[in-house]
């Protein structure tokens, strides 16, 4: 759409700018200030320069946590996006089943993070959980508190359970927006099911898939509460993700300087990855319109 050049539009943006600046810029400035000083409590600070950054960058635990975090986000995206698209394709398009399916699908989305954790604790425990108990009956020793692999399976499964419906709902409404004429044309041409998907449905889904990928990446990269409730970062450090490490430093240990330096690096990584995603996707979109 052709937009009109008008710098007075800034007045419409102003409330948003002030509101977000209050909760983003001021805290971010404070984080930067903390990151170059050592705190002795009671408002006493000593300037230490870039010392915290150097120690944080050299910290093996953080390299591991970053690796785990990237693996987790990658896994979650690799499972949720294809699964979500497939489920969306199988959903009925009309009839009384539609609202029922949609409501059932949307339900997990509105479960608070810590309740998701509680649910999966209850569900996966060997003594009282349906999943754990059933697996034990089948002869599989499933123990997410001792076995790192099982802890990972639980955490990934939990995230898939919680968030795949978001991908499904986005894709479903994307599919609904395709005019029936497109499908008729495909049928006349004798297109296979795969060809219909590849050349009609997938291109139309790009807009919603952009949102799904970005949202899921951002949220999975900052995941905290669910693994914290279920595994507490353990066993050992197996599910110790970046946010868990950071919260531990900042709140429990009150190591303000290192925590702040860590925060800045964490934020920069997220910013870089999201910028690449965002740019790539919007550029492809523009190229297609031409």
């Amino acid at each position, binding site marked *: 759409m052709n*937009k009109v*050049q*008008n*710098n007075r*539009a*800034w007045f*419409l*943006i102003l*409330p*948003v*700018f002030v*509101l*977000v600046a209050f*909760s*983003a810029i*001021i805290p971010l400035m*404070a*984080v930067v200030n*903390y990151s170059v000083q050592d705190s002795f409590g009671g408002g006493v600070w000593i300037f230490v320069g870039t010392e915290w950054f150097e120690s944080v960058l050299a910290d093996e635990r953080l390299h591991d946590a970053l690796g785990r975090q990237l693996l987790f986000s990658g896994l979650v995206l690799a499972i949720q996006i294809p699964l979500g698209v497939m*489920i969306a394709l*199988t959903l009925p398009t009309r009839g009384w089943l539609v609202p029922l399916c*949609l*409501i*059932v*699908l*949307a*339900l997990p989305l*509105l479960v608070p*993070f*810590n*309740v998701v954790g*509680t649910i*999966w604790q*209850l*569900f996966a425990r060997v*003594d*009282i*959980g*349906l999943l754990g*108990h059933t697996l034990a009956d089948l002869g599989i020793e499933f123990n997410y508190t001792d076995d790192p692999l099982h802890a990972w399976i639980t955490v990934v499964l939990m995230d898939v359970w919680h968030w795949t419906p978001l991908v499904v*709902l986005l894709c479903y*409404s*994307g599919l609904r*927006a395709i005019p029936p004429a497109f499908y008729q044309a495909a049928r006349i041409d004798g297109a296979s099911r795969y060809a219909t998907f590849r050349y009609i449905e997938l291109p139309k889904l790009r*807009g*919603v898939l952009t*949102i799904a990928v970005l949202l899921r990446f951002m949220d999975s990269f*900052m995941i*905290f*509460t669910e693994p914290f409730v279920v595994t507490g970062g353990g066993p050992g450090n197996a599910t110790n993700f970046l*946010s868990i490490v950071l919260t531990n430093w*900042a709140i429990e240990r009150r190591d*303000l300087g290192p925590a*702040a330096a860590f*925060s800045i690096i*964490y*934020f920069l990584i*997220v*910013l870089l990855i*999201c910028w690449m995603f965002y740019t790539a996707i919007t550029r492809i979109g523009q190229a297609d319109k031409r």
Partner: protein
Amino acid sequence: MKAVRPSGLALTCYLILLMLPLYWLIKMSLQSNEDILGTFSLLPVNPSFDNYITIFTDSSWYLGYVNSLTYVLMNVTIVLLVALPAAYAFSRYRFIGDKHMFFWLLSNRMAPPAVFLLPFFELYHAVGLFDTHIAVALAHCLFNVPLAVWILEGFMSSVPREVDEMAYIDGYSFPRFFVTVFLPLVRNGVGVTAFFCFMYSWIELLMARTLTLTDAKPISVTMTRTISAAGLDWGLLAAAGTLTLIPGALVIWFVRNYIAKGFALGRV
């Protein structure tokens, strides 16, 4: 009767798997802790509503729900009020720094809440808002405002410009045009945005926990603190968890008609 297609079968399986953990939670909530730990069964043994009665008769429990709902509703209201004009500006005008402003907003959606915990704690202390509902509502704006602007911008861009121009020719002022003509056209978008804001604010725990102590303590925090204090009463925990599903279920019921159409977020 039609033969059951394989895709229908797969869908049914998926939906059942989706509901199993929730069923298990509700089942647990109807049992006492002894029964939960004592016998394993698929159906509730000695079902009773004792856990729910405990929650509804203890103000430290039920006030948690009131607190959570209060700040969530405040948040949704604030977000919609500021995001609607901003999204209109982004969808209609080009101005200096528009793309960068948009990405800066989004970058706040990307910022991990853990990064902001400490300064938030200090900031809200300094301005005297610590342990109030509005503090949590404002803090949640950090990720909900950018999301709302992003979603609404998509919807508004799909409304043709001619609508605006016609209204101005007819002598509408901007506020009157916006409320009486434009808003009804994007009400799907407003519904879906409200849904997303409610969702993210309702499920968020980290900031809500950091910014509250007693007066505005949300239900999710009441739950985590009770675990450590009283040992694990799985039945009570499950009942509290089940009750957190109800506001979500109500919201879904209200937006059920928007889900199919509106969730494309104007981006197809």
